[in-house]
């Protein structure tokens, strides 16, 4: 059912296989089969998943965790009520898949060890603008849009974020970031646990994931949350049929409809009439369906045109907010895969270019719609990569990576510091974290979402708070 499964030529086998299986399993709310010994079960595994058409907005949602709710009109009312209340702040989480090479996003141009570790991949000192807060680091030239926002005080840079004891596993590290703890057995996401405490039982848009399936960081125990692949979906779904037999099936809606309208019986004619009208609507909406190759509606200016859905999804967040929908926590993942084990330059460049332009366009979009004061965006990846390049023109899984908090109300000052290559590497020669990701989460919960972190992040009192919001 999903149009494209991210599969990167340069990513490791485990990553590709996991993404393929995640898409297939997600339809049934099942977790990933075991791909790696000891891998954690993704948060949200086993949550019930129900389709729901939000009539007021024409949105087709998958609602997770509806629990005891038997009547979906509860959600129509809940969403309307939440939309009429004072608008809550919005936290957007953008996940860069695969462990982006933070040492290329912000490269230690002036460090003599940089070219020693990366004879092939090292960027020239003058290629990108220096980071004003620490001129040892330069922005990758394609990250220039982020540098511009940083210059406006809208980006808090976290140059070395992670946790101690990383094992370089995609599944484990991603899981820890999603559940907000270094615990393999947690099945709720960090934002999910926040929503369980502060959310409403009847507003599934409070935790919204713009993807075919739920991002584990939004997985709740009690409150409903939702995923939406793209707005305005009018999809007929028969299981276990695809390709030409499916296409022909749609053609027979018309045939069945005419049998009804021609039957001479009032009730059968009503059924036939409904079939014909539904088929007409299906054909009219087909160009706008997510799986279609036909032209998608145009994006607002500034967003890069792209074969993948990331820019459209970010633009979609701005649109949904502008329409007054009561979003609170939102999650998007890139389709670009940054697991650049080989031939890094091409994959990283095209992915980073798209991400930087999209994040910049999103910020401008919010500003032009008067929404900038309400939205904060956290950009993260499951780990950074090794300082030392490998023999295939790429880099392998590392430890600390970079993260960003972006928005008009972001404090705009650096969190933690770049530890340097001379003394800042651990026993495995990976970058040591100078900020723990849980400090970032605790600080966001308290400063932006206005909720105590202790009941949400295990061990919250042990993580220093950092100022992220102005």
């Amino acid at each position, binding site marked *: 059912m999903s149009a494209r499964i991210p599969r990167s030529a340069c990513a490791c086998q485990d990553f590709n296989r996991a993404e393929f299986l995640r898409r297939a399993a997600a339809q049934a709310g099942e977790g990933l089969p075991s791909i790696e010994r000891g891998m954690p079960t993704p948060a949200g595994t086993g949550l019930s998943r129900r389709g729901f058409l939000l009539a007021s907005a024409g949105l087709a949602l998958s609602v997770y965790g509806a629990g005891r709710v038997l009547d979906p009109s509860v959600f129509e009312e809940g969403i309307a009520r939440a939309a009429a209340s004072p608008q809550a702040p919005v936290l957007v989480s953008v996940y860069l898949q695969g462990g982006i090479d933070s040492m290329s996003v912000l490269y230690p141009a002036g460090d003599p060890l940089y070219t020693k570790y990366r004879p092939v991949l090292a960027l020239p000192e003058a290629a990108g603008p220096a980071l004003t807060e620490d001129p040892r680091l330069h922005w990758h030239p394609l990250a220039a849009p982020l540098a511009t926002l940083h210059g406006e005080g809208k980006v808090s840079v976290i140059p070395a974020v992670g946790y101690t004891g990383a094992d370089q596993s995609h599944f484990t590290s991603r899981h820890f970031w999603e559940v907000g703890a270094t615990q393999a057995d947690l099945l709720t996401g960090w934002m999910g646990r926040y929503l369980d405490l502060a959310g409403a039982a009847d507003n599934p848009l409070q935790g919204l994931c713009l993807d075919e399936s739920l991002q584990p960081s939004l997985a709740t125990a009690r409150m409903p949350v939702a995923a939406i692949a793209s707005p305005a979906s009018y999809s007929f779904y*028969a299981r276990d049929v695809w390709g030409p037999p499916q296409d022909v099936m749609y053609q027979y809606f018309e045939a069945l409809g005419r*049998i009804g309208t021609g*039957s001479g019986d009032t009730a059968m004619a009503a059924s036939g009439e409904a079939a014909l009208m539904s088929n007409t609507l299906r054909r009219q909406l087909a160009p706008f369906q997510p799986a279609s190759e036909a032209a998608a509606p145009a994006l607002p200016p500034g967003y890069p045109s792209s074969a993948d859905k990331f820019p459209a999804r970010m633009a979609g967040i701005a649109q949904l907010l502008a329409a007054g929908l009561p979003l609170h926590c939102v999650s998007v993942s890139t389709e670009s895969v940054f697991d650049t084990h080989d031939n890094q330059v091409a994959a990283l460049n095209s992915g980073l270019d798209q991400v930087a332009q999209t994040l910049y366009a999103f910020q401008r979009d919010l500003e032009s719609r008067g929404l900038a004061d309400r939205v904060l965006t956290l950009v993260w990846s499951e780990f950074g990569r090794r300082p030392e390049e490998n023999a295939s023109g790429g880099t392998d899984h590392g430890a600390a990576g970079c993260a960003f908090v972006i928005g008009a109300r972001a404090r705009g000052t650096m969190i933690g510091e770049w530890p340097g290559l001379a003394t800042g590497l651990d026993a495995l020669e990976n970058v040591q974290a100078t900020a723990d990701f849980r400090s970032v989460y605790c600080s966001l919960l308290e400063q932006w979402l206005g909720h105590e972190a202790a009941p949400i992040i295990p061990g919250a009192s042990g993580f220093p708070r950092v100022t992220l919001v102005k």
Partner: protein
Amino acid sequence: MHPLIHAGPRMVKAPIVQIAGMLRGIGRYIDTDDWAWESSLVGQTPFYPPNVGGWEAARWLNTGTWLARFNLAAQMIDDKRAVKPHAAGKKVAVNPRALANQALAFWGDPTVSPATRHALIAYAKTAAVDAAKAPWEREQYPALALSALRALVVASPDYQTC
């Protein structure tokens, strides 16, 4: 039962009636309360009519409820009842008439008009036979077509009315 129970014009089945009939036809009965939700999407929230007048029998079908009604089959066919192309083996017919019969038998052999039966067979011929050119297609399309036929049977005006 008194014969007059079955007399009178046909009516569009209320959502609960359609769902109950489908579940009974495949022998699944009630193993989840999801059907209350699904029924709401099809236009009837159990025990919660729009007003004291109850539900209006003539107003069950619009483009939204017809979509939800069509999608019921996918909810109802659980993994053990599904037709998997790779595992189909000898359980799936290739002959279009036999395929249509298999789809009808799945739902407990509901009565359908000759016109509808003819349409189901025509679908099976187009989808499972004419469209299948390569060897792998000839092997798999009958199973895919059977899955589609199951959905088409319960979407037919015959099945949606009684």
